[in-house]
């Protein structure tokens, strides 16, 4: 069988090496090369989606297993279920758009080449993580990914970028290393042998309750930092403010999903008893994230920080959906992971375009733009409305699924979170009001460019996809239904046992 997943991991990595190897003269063409590589990757992702057997979405498909370091029981094992599939499609979709969105960011060819190579390398790691079927492989990619990201944040962006990069790295590393203890401990709970780390071999282990809970916590902490949940979210606004909007778009829209993805596919699937045990506290923190993120978003002047805080709030809803453990809520959370990627990715891109025009992310510097650039204003509004879950756009479907689904399990949490949804209307509409309404700008500020063709190519497909999934959500929900069912079944069997 054609090893499509390995190819999808290797292709961007090789693309990155190719970019670094480009001689000085050819570096002027680096953007085209990077775009071509990511476009091929997108085609592969579409093929993957088309070939995926939706009737068996709960099981791993396109599986490949090769021995990697048999001495410590780890294999190069890839495979996707419905959730991994959606995440891979999301990664493959957003990377070329991020490259397009940042087309004019660098003046210097070699600097730009460096940036693009790092983006490609990150894409390789992302796809590898979403496809990993081996806990050790997952961990290795999870940690190694920090290096390109660290340089993406630290080398390219605003004034405080170095501080932001170090903060990001230390947070992630602290979480990752504690997860390492969990990974090692899990090994000793498992069957051992050459394939000790395959997730299949680690599912349904008979562990002592204490061991299971401790290992669960070690994993969960790493994912909570990545997904950013309050109180370990503080790196995200700093990074968002200082990194390039393109980097942040990828970071928040795709990479942070590794947190929720890990919760779903590792934390809950491998440690159902512990997940069930910890769920009330996790839901509490999820609700706090929803409200706290929304309140802080309202208070932000910097649009990038604002979007970052809205994401903290949205991640809270996803975590709520996962740990409510009902069919609808888990399905909704998994679907929301995809939709949030589309919506937040678009939001960061469009804010980036605004910053490109005005040179600042400070919302008070803007005003009256809808009279000058109506298309940009309209696009922004649609994207903003998707973030506040307007019916007709796909985030609405998933958010309502989480809230309705979770209601039976956690009534108070859902009621409080619903307030967060109302607050979302506030931060989106207030921002729109400040930036686009009011008297038309005068003088130099009046000469603002309308949304260019390149920018439309970045934003409109995302909006179209949100509309499509808003009316026909079944396309994506089919992919997550079975995985969600399996997860809920594993956890509820614990409940019955307890």
């Amino acid at each position, binding site marked *: 069988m054609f090893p499509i997943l390995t190819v999808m991991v290797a292709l961007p990595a090789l693309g990155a090496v190719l970019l670094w190897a480009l001689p000085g003269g050819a570096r002027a063409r680096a953007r085209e090369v990077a775009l071509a590589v990511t476009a091929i990757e997108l085609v592969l992702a579409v093929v993957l989606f088309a070939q995926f057997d939706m009737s068996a979405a709960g099981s791993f498909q396109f599986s490949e297993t090769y021995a*990697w*370091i*048999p001495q410590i029981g780890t294999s190069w094992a890839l495979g996707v279920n419905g959730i991994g599939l959606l995440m891979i499609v999301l990664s493959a979709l957003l990377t070329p758009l991020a490259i397009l969105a940042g087309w004019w960011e660098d003046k210097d060819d070699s600097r730009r080449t460096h940036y693009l190579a790092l983006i490609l390398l990150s894409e390789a790691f992302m796809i590898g993580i979403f496809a990993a079927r081996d806990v050790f492989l997952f961990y290795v990619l999870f940690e190694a990914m920090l290096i390109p990201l660290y*340089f993406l944040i630290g080398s390219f962006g605003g004034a405080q970028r170095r501080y932001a*990069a170090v903060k990001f790295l230390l947070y992630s590393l602290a979480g990752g290393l504690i997860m390492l203890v969990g990974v090692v401990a899990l090994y000793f709970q498992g069957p051992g042998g050459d394939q000790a780390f395959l997730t299949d071999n680690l599912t349904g282990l008979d562990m002592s309750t204490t061991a299971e809970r401790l290992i669960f916590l070690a994993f969960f902490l790493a994912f909570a930092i990545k997904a950013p949940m309050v109180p370990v979210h503080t790196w995200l606004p700093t990074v968002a403010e200082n990194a390039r909007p393109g980097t942040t778009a990828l970071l928040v829209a795709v990479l942070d999903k590794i947190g929720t993805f890990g919760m779903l596919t590792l934390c809950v699937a491998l440690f159902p008893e512990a997940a069930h045990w910890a769920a009330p506290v996790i839901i509490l923190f999820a609700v706090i994230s929803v409200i706290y993120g929304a309140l802080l978003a309202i208070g932000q002047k910097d649009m990038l920080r604002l979007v970052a805080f809205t994401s903290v709030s949205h991640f809270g809803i996803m975590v709520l959906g996962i740990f409510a453990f009902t069919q609808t809520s888990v399905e909704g959370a998994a679907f929301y992971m995809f939709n949030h990627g589309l919506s937040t990715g678009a939001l960061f891109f469009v804010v980036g375009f605004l910053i490109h025009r005005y040179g600042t992310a400070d919302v008070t510097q803007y005003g009256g733009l809808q009279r000058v650039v109506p298309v940009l204003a309209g696009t922004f509004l649609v994207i903003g409305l998707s973030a506040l879950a307007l019916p007709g756009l796909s985030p609405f479907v998933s958010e309502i699924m989480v809230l309705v689904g979770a209601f039976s399990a956690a009534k108070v949490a859902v009621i409080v979170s619903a307030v967060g949804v109302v607050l979302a209307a506030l931060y989106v509409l207030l921002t729109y009001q400040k930036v686009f309404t009011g008297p038309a700008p005068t003088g130099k500020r009046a000469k603002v460019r309308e949304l260019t063709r390149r920018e439309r190519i970045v934003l409109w497909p995302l909006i179209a996809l949100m509309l499509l999934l808003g009316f026909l959500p079944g396309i994506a929900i089919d992919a997550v239904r079975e995985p969600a069912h399996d997860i809920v079944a594993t956890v509820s069997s614990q409940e019955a046992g307890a």
Partner: protein
Amino acid sequence: MSFTTPEIAWAPLTPLLIVLGASAVAILVESFVRSPETRRRTQLVLSLVALVGAAGAAVVQWATLDGAGTVVLDGMLTVDRQSLAWQVLILVFGTLGTLLFASRTRAGEEAFTPLGASAPGSSDETLARRKGLQVTEVFPLALVAVGGMMLFTSVTDLIFLFVALEVFSLPLYVLVALARRRRFLSHEGALKYFLLGAFSSAILLFGAAFLYGATGSTSYAGVAAGISSSTGTDALILAGAVMVVVGLLFKIGAVPFHSWTPDAYQGAPTPVTAFMGAATKAAATAALLRVMYAALYGLNWELSWLFWVVAIASMLLGTVVALVQTELKRMLAYSSIAHAGFILVAFAGLPDTALSALPFYLASYGLATMGAFAVITQVRERSDEGTVLGEATRLGQWAGLGKRSPWLAGAMALFLLSFAGIPLTAGFVGKFVAFSAAISSGAWPLVLVAVIASAAAAFFYVRLIVLMFLTDVPEGQEDAIEIDYSPLARTVVAVTAVLVLLLGIVPGPVLSAFENAGVLLLGAGG
């Protein structure tokens, strides 16, 4: 009175005999070859041939070893796969170290003083420099040190343990004192290293005497038998055991026996620091492993508190103090103390897997250490007049190195990431196997401390990466740094960088080789 000549199986000692024999020849070369340049070349070739040849012999022995191994000299020495693995490791470090010893700057300057006996700044020194003298004694000294370390990894007798310790320590004391620049620092470092080293040897010997007194034997097997036959806790045995272990912890550089490390690391000529940092730690770890598993295994429970306390103290102190260092070599010295702590984590509870995990850990740590110090030899200060001075070891001087020399800075970043234990580098696999060993014996709280210390340690490794890649060269300082080019040092950088990556991505073959080595011929463990 009759004297029976002991039966000695010479064949298993081949690697050792090659190295020690070559060192004897090298001393003769010192006496009879007059021209410094010819002498240097002869010594370099002789050393390399001996080290590579010995490594080859060790590998052949590994392949042809009957059964688990051979006992030599009535149980004084044991040659098994464990000792051969360590010997090969030390020979690799010795070879790389010798290349660094021989490297010169573009201006043809060695790392060593032209005349060790001259007072710093004296007219003798100036004269020696003008006449082009060279201390080529460094090569035989290094060979003796390598030979002593190889012995140290294989001894199974307390008296021989002490002899081997002295054989490799004395040349190192001399080597540390031979720096070409900042000679007072070098002398200070050497004196501290010597005094504290002598002190630790005395403690070790004292402990050996206690153990002999209590068990009536100096051989590991005899001590182990004595321990298992004693009823209850024998204070004499326990005191002796603690003192022997403390003597070895000194050489590993663990807190509170670490105080020589920063000064010796900083003062020594950088090639010596590289060799010492990599090889001494490996040899001392090997000796400690064998003492613990072959002689003191019965005291596992009684001694575990010592390893816990020392490991935690080393990790915390090493990490915290390294955070505030502004001198690169001192920072790496404190990082080596933290690594001593990580090494000791694997000793907690004496799991069988430590015997195969620690050789890998020390291989990854040693390669990154050699590489990092080799990079340091290549970054030099330049005076206002443009003459190239010594190594630029203040952290601030490394700002913007990534722009001046991307490959060199990239290699340094790789070594630092390996120290920090980031996946896809050798350091990660090393930490993984070492921590797995500790968790297998139930020491997970210790591992938790270790990972938190690793995360904190990442901060100062990353700080240097930030300086190299994300900071611009300060205004007006563009000419203050000279990137030197020495083919030998660059070779070391390239070889170690490739090995660090290879051991990080495909560690399988080496891991399985060390798994074979994880069995001791004699001893309770394994």
